[in-house]
């Protein structure tokens, strides 16, 4: 089953528990920071172009997109907070 299918959040919520998901969020954040900072960023900072665009541009936007998709998936899988959830009274 592809992870982005509609049923994926139920599947994930059942398979992965909350502390694990929060851990995954932390890892995603730290990994994102590492990937866009030297020295790791230099790994993809080669003088090559793909379709005329420098590789590093591709790389940075790809990391960026991966972070967005990763966060969206994790948020869908993460069960909601208590009803309170710090709701501001209207």
């Amino acid at each position: 089953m592809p992870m982005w299918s509609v049923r994926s959040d139920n599947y994930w919520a059942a398979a992965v528990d909350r502390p694990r998901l929060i851990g995954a969020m932390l890892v995603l954040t730290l990994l994102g920071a590492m990937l866009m900072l030297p020295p790791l960023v230099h790994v993809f900072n080669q003088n090559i172009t793909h379709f005329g665009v420098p590789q590093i541009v591709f790389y940075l936007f790809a990391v960026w997109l991966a972070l967005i998709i990763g966060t969206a998936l994790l948020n869908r899988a993460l069960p909601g907070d208590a009803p309170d959830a710090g709701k501001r009274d209207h």
Partner: protein
Amino acid sequence: MLSADFLIATAIGYVGLLFVIAYFGDRRARSNTRSFLHSPAVYTLSISVYCTSWTFYGAVGNAARSGLEFVTIYLGPTLVFVGWWFLLRRLVRISHHQRNTSVADLLSSRFGKSNRLAVLVTSIAVVGIAPYIALQLKAVTSSIQAVAGSSEFGQGSLAGIDDVGLAFGIAAGMALFTILFGTRHVDAKEQHHGVVAAIAFEAVVKLAALLAVGIFVVYVGGGFEAIFSRAAAMGVAVDAANTFDSRWLTTLALSVAAIVCLPRQFQVTVVENSDENHLRVASWAFPAYMLLMSLFILPIAMFGLVTMPDGANPDMFALTLPMAFGQDGLALFAFIGGFSSATSMIILESIALSIMVSNHIVMPMILRFSPAGNGDGQGVTRLLLNARRFSIVLILSLGFFYFFFTRDSDALAPIGLISFTAIAQFFPAVLAALFWREASLKAATSAIAGGFLFWVWCSFLPSFQSVSPQVANLLANGPWGIAWLRPEAMFGLDGMDPLVHAAFWSLTVNVLTLALVSLVTRQSALERIQASVFVDVFKRGPLVRGNFVLGSATANDLYFVAERVLGERRAAALFDVAARESGVDPDQLDPTPEFIGRLERELAGSIGAASAHVMLSKVVSGSDISLEEMMQMADETQQVIEYSQQLEQTSAELRSTARQLEEANGRLRELDARKDDFLSQVSHEVRTPMTSIRSFSEILLDDSDITDGQRRHFVGTIHQESLRLTKLLDEILDLSALERGERAWENLPTNAEAALDRALLVCEAALRQSGVQLETGSRAGAITVAADADRLCQVFINLLINAIRYNDAPAPVLRVQSSILAGSYAVEIADNGPGVPTEERKLIFEKFSRGKRSPADTRGAGLGLAISRQLVERMNGTLELVEGPLCGACFRVQLPLRA
């Protein structure tokens, strides 16, 4: 052909549209709390106010000048939103609980509700944001001029007006608009649904405009590949070799701090947040928005550099490229997009700042200088609104003046980074507020102030370099010629990028001060309370919001507090006594200062003096701590007390268990020693007869010439010794069987006197042989006890033989008597021998104890008394050594009478 007049008319029309959107947005939000204005989408779009004209115009210019660096401004916030669970969620939760209205309010409330800190943060924000506002003014001015300057016709009525005049006009217009927009009424929660609606609309407009320009550029340029290849062919390439240096790291870090601490970002992300779960959507949608905004920045920059004439301002490529290709409609759309990004920033930033100024600077002054109870609520509201209007004018004026003084600098992005560095000074304190319990008010204040001073010196001041020869001189030589104080080379740290240099020094000083001062200062009681409220925000249960306690305390409020802390009974007693003393009904008790003092002392006994004082002073004077919060404090203290009591109880139990274990261990050690003792005694006892048996049998074997008489004697001795050995082993077996209770035992009705008589009869020979005189005292007569007759007789014989054997008196006497003593049958066997020394009295019933007086005595194994005692105990009786009628020892056997 576009003209400046047309642009300005369009801009005014656009502002009018915004106003309409805000008006209806407000009405809609009020009438329907479930409208789409409360949706995560609108929330996300409002956060996109982060993308200002810095993004719309400045990013292109930045990309044209320094390549990829522009993305750090969006990657930093992306990281913050990807990690929303750890920082933003906490920030939103705390701010909702604490009802924070701004970052200044947040810091002040965390650090002991200090107004001084709030004033400091507000002042720094106002000064620090000035370059950012100037950036927007500059962008709008440049964009109008870019259109107007392109032709004689374009100038229109702007002919003869320079950029300063234009910027002033824009600033004034913005001030007017923001005042009309944002200060129509004072909202207790400081939420502005109408404004948020307009901001969200503007976010859509600016994204659409930039995407339109980007797609157009890619289309005209023949696709991404063609644009990049053409740029590369002309020597314009993305400089990636030197991009990832300290500047990359610095701008990334500054943008992380800015997305959290910028007043307008705090306002939209935290204050305007109506549901924490909206963050879930925003956490990916806002980064996605920024990604879309950044997507075409590089192509636009590259294409602009290739196609535009030399000397064209790269900041304006998004506007000038469509114009250069004759696309006036698209150029107008781009202008509206840029105008949108500028107006949304200016509106929201000045509203956020004006709230800070009015709440933290103007309001406390009003409260201090106007007599209490004077004036109604209406007057205060009007005063507050006027303070905000004044603040907006002040903030835009500061922005305009900054623009005026630095108008010669051409790039947009560096101006924004000056503001980012200033705002980043709040970030360490915000992090400490959320995560570090020990951070203190003094530390936060001095850290922010220290960082700010370094910012002024290293970042703010150098930006006036181009307009002021004095500043230029200062930069070159340092103040009074002190080289190590040069603003861009502090302490001789030369050759660094000025931004990196300023950020490094200001933030280093900031963080170090925060950490070190926190370690050496003490927190006040209120600071400690607030620190735990902040740090433990997710550990406590949902907070029930109650009414705020205002005005003087009523007996009800005090009782409510007292009952929670002291318990119902004590609180009621306290209040009853007070009521009786003042002679009123408990319901109508009017709390006097004396009574409150007494109550405070009572409370201090339970929760400590500091907490009691804070609680009562809050109830009594009326403040923004609600009664519910105080109750929570009391509950927490109660929980801590209970917990510590449980701990105490547990540790007492542990102590007692340890003591029991120690005792058991001692007993075990003693038993072990006795076992060893016993074994060595047994070996010894066995060895003596064995030795004589062996030696006699050796003689018999080896010596052939011994006489018959001798042989008979030797064999007799061997026989005797083996008998003794057998008897000893029998006794040991007997004793161990008795001790382990192996042998079947039956206590039958027995005539005890008969047993005693039989024993005396058995011992008669021994008596006569040793010349002991037997005295028979009173006898109990026929008595029936539950016992084993033979065994009882054995006990008596043992005692009698002992008394005969160890009696070394010149005229030995043995006295036997029996009686009924305290309901039991007692036999006393006494002699006038040496008696038992005091130190041996405990030991004589032990196995192999024969008494020290007769070490050479080998006639008994020393098991007699031990066996006797075991036997008597089996018959439910006792055998003990008592003070006897004679000078020697006296053993008493006591057996219960048979019922």
